Structure formats: structure tokens, C-alpha cells
């Protein structure tokens, strides 16, 4: 075996001690500079403190909850698609403080015998709150597990006594550019609109969420009241709702208007129907490295599959 000998030149002859120390200092300073840059930038991914939000009283667990590991408060409240507060995921956590979620009225109208306007505080007081730990699958192929607190939508809709003309339910988000700065941009049509078929709205999985982790909903997550439809892509779960209306015809929904070839009315989670620009077969569960298979109806086929037996899911994506 050949063993190489050292060159015989002392390293101190090549680099003087003074220069050596200078180099060290340089490395130290540049590391510090980069470090402070990172720390500064970290505010970009704003942290929201859980304890700032009031606890909600009397929450009961639900058999509809999943046992999947929930995502952290920080992940759920700093990674949001809520274009009313900006188009990047970090924008809502930074900008949503301008929203004033209290007092908040939600109007229920259209084809029903008993229309009315409700204060969200009263809805919270007068209804049994349930914790629903649901999977949320975004159309962008990432997912989270979120412990919502809410009321079954059916409970609220039944009280309005919809008539036989009520075939669909339309939902409308607040329109108030002063509170929602993103509405000054024309990136989408405002206000944000969504809709469900009557049976989807009445499905026991569908809830109006008013909280998260047992606390009131942060503004970036759709305070004070939002829809959660766990078997559909996230954009169906409209946030900061001011109006619910029973209608006869299929209502329009904002993303469908914006790009009809990419986002449908139904938007059921379906690994068999690709988005034109990406595959929907798999998803990244935030907080874990590996990808997992996406399930039909986001794993809620047992509860919702019966509603779609006659529907061509490829055509009605």
C-alpha cells in the first residue's frame, strides 16, 4: 500500500496565524449576518399565539372525528389560502388582523319559511358545539388534520325550514375591502361565493366551524364562522360567511368562474381525476416528509358516497 507523506511544509507557512484568525472572524461574521437575516425573515412566517384566542365552552367530542395526528396550531394558522388577505400562504396570518369578526351577523334567506339574521355569538350560545377532527385536502395536493369546533350545518338550516324549491344552498363571504385588503385586487371576483347541493349541505359531516383547538377561530382561518366540507377540496369550505341562501338552481362558485376547466362545482376529492396541471393521486400531509395516497372523497366515502352513485365524477369534477 502506498502511504503518501505530508508535503513537509508547515501549514503555518502557507497561512499566517494572523490571516488564519482573520478568516475565522470573517466566517463568524458572515454566519452571524446570515443568521440575523434568517431571524428577520422568520417574521414572514408569522407566529400566532394560541393563548390569545378565547376558549369556547361546552364542546363535546364526535364520532365523526378521525384519529389521525392533528397538525399544530402554528401550521394551521400560518399556512392558509385566503385570497381576501393576499395570495401567498403566509399573507393571511400577516394581514387578517384588519378583519373585525365581532359582532357578526349571518343572514339565512331564500326559499325558506323562516328566514332570519343570526348573531354568531347567539349561534354559539344556543347550539351544542362539537369538536370535529377532520382531514382537509387542498386542491394543490397538500393536506392537514384540523380539530375544528362547530355546529352541524343541518341544525342551522332546519330552523329556517327550507321549502321544496330549495335545491341548492349558496354561501357568500363578507365584501369589505377596508377589512379585507386582498379584495382591492382583481385576482378573483369578490365576494367569494360557494355552493352545495341540498343533500350535501344536510349531510351530517358538513359543519359551520366557529373554532379551532377549542378556541375561537383566528381571522386567517375564516373567523368568525366558516363552512367545513371535509370530503371536498379546501376551496369549497368558504370562510367568513355573511349570507346563506336557499336557491333553486346550481349556484356559481368563485374558483369555477375563475378557471372553469380546473375547478368544478362539486370538487369532490378524487385521486382518479387529475387537475389539468397536476396529479391528485397523492398528497403531502404537512408535517411529514413522505407522501400518502389520496382517498376517494378524502376517506369519507362511507358517509358521503351514496350521494354520488348516479353522478359521473369525471364529468362533474
Amino acid at each position, binding site marked *: 500500500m502506498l502511504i503518501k507523506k505530508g508535503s513537509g511544509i508547515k501549514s503555518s507557512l502557507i497561512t499566517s496565524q494572523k490571516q488564519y484568525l482573520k478568516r475565522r472572524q470573517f466566517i463568524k461574521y458572515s454566519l452571524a449576518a*446570515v443568521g440575523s437575516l434568517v431571524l428577520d425573515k422568520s417574521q414572514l412566517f408569522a407566529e400566532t399565539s394560541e393563548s390569545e384566542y378565547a376558549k369556547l365552552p361546552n364542546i363535546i367530542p364526535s364520532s365523526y372525528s378521525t384519529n389521525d395526528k392533528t397538525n399544530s396550531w402554528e401550521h394551521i394558522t400560518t*399556512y392558509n389560502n385566503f385570497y381576501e388577505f393576499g395570495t401567498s400562504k403566509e399573507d393571511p396570518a400577516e394581514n387578517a388582523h384588519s378583519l373585525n369578526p365581532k359582532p357578526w351577523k349571518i343572514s339565512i334567506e331564500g326559499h325558506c319559511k323562516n328566514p332570519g339574521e343570526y348573531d354568531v355569538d347567539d349561534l354559539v350560545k344556543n347550539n351544542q358545539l362539537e369538536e370535529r377532527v377532520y382531514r382537509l385536502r387542498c386542491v394543490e395536493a397538500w393536506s*392537514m388534520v384540523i380539530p375544528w369546533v362547530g355546529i352541524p350545518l343541518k341544525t342551522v338550516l332546519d330552523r329556517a325550514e327550507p321549502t321544496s324549491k330549495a335545491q341548492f344552498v349558496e354561501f357568500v363571504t363578507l365584501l369589505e375591502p377596508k377589512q379585507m385588503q386582498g379584495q382591492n385586487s382583481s385576482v378573483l371576483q369578490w365576494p367569494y361565493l360557494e355552493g352545495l347541493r341540498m343533500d350535501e349541505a344536510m349531510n351530517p359531516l358538513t359543519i359551520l366551524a366557529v373554532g379551532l383547538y377549542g378556541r375561537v377561530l383566528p381571522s386567517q382561518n375564516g373567523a368568525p364562522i366558516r363552512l367545513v366540507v371535509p370530503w371536498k377540496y379546501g376551496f369549497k369550505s368558504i370562510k367568513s360567511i355573511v349570507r346563506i341562501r336557499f336557491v333553486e338552481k346550481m349556484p356559481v362558485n368563485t374558483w369555477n368562474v375563475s378557471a372553469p376547466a380546473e375547478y368544478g362545482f362539486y370538487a369532490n376529492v378524487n385521486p382518479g381525476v387529475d387537475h389539468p396541471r*397536476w396529479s391528485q393521486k397523492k398528497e403531502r400531509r*404537512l408535517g411529514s*416528509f413522505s407522501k400518502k395516497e389520496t382517498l376517494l372523497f378524502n376517506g369519507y366515502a362511507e358517509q358521503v358516497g351514496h350521494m354520488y352513485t348516479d353522478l359521473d365524477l369525471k364529468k362533474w369534477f
Partner: protein
Amino acid sequence: MKIFKSTVFTAALLPVAYLIFGLVGDKLGANPIETLLHKTGFWTLTFLMITLSVSPVRKLSNWNKIIKFRRMLGLFAFFYACLHFTIYLGLDRQFEWQEIVEDLSKRPYITIGFTALVMLVPLAITSTKGWIRKLGKRWQKLHRLIYVIATAGVVHFWWLVKKDITEPLIFALILSLLMTFRLALLKIKLQAIQK
């Protein structure tokens, strides 16, 4: 000049340092892989634009020595493009080759992005002094590919975004400005020849 060059070199590596610090310190948000992909893509385009602005800056300022930075800047664009592609392969797609092939063949924004990367390879290889000498006049012709690559890169970004095209639009504007400058120069040259 040497100090100047190593300063630029170090500065060009700062984004990598930032991403490594962010990754280690869990500061890249809820979806770190997406952040890594977007940032490396952003820096690839940025270095392409910087590389393309070397000639115009040189002509406008008569600061001829700036040309000495062009190769390094171009290679950094290649470096960030490789990082971007490696993160896509390994972290985003986790070497699921079937999916990768599907992406490349079915999704135009990925096809065009990959094409741009492939075209960058011969430019990176032939960036050495030896190759410049060997290729002679053909070298410059070959390296005009960079215009196609930069355009493809911007289109890749444009086709990828969901709705808010502000950022790709900014890149498109910068690129058209840089191209307009070259066309204007070409026109002046042609007129001079005709006279």
C-alpha cells in the same frame, strides 16, 4: 478584482445559506419542501436575469471588466436550476419515476421547465476557456440559447401559478427589457453596416 469576485461568489451563495439555516431551524413554514422549490426556482430566474443584464450594463456604463463576472453568474443560474430540479426529484416527487415521467410528458409547465434545464447543460459545459477557444465563433451562437432558456424559464413560472401572476409578470417585464435592449443594439449595428 479577485476580492471583488469572491465577494460576488459569496453573495451568490447567500440564498443557499438562508435555506439551510431555515431548514435546520424549522423556519421555512408549514410546507418546507414547497418553500425550497419556490425559492430555488426564484433564484434560478434571478440569476438568469442578472447574467443577461451583464452585457447591457457593460455597454451602457463602459465598465468592461464586468464581463469577467458573466460566466460565474451564468453558472450560478445553472447551479440553482440543478438544486431546484434535485429538490423536485428527491423531496417533492421522492424519486417516483412513473410520476416524474407523467409530469414531464403531461404537464406543460414541467415539460418546458425541464427543457430549459436540459438546454442549460451544454452552456455550462462549454463555459470553460478551452471550449471557448475550441468553438470559436460557434461559441457565441451556441450561447445565444440563453435567450430561449430564460424565456422558457419565465413561461414555466407563468404556467405554474394558480392565479396571481404578479411575480412571473415582473420576470417577463425584466426579460423583455433586456431583450429590447439587444434588439435596439442590433438595429443600430445593421443601420451602420448599410451606410
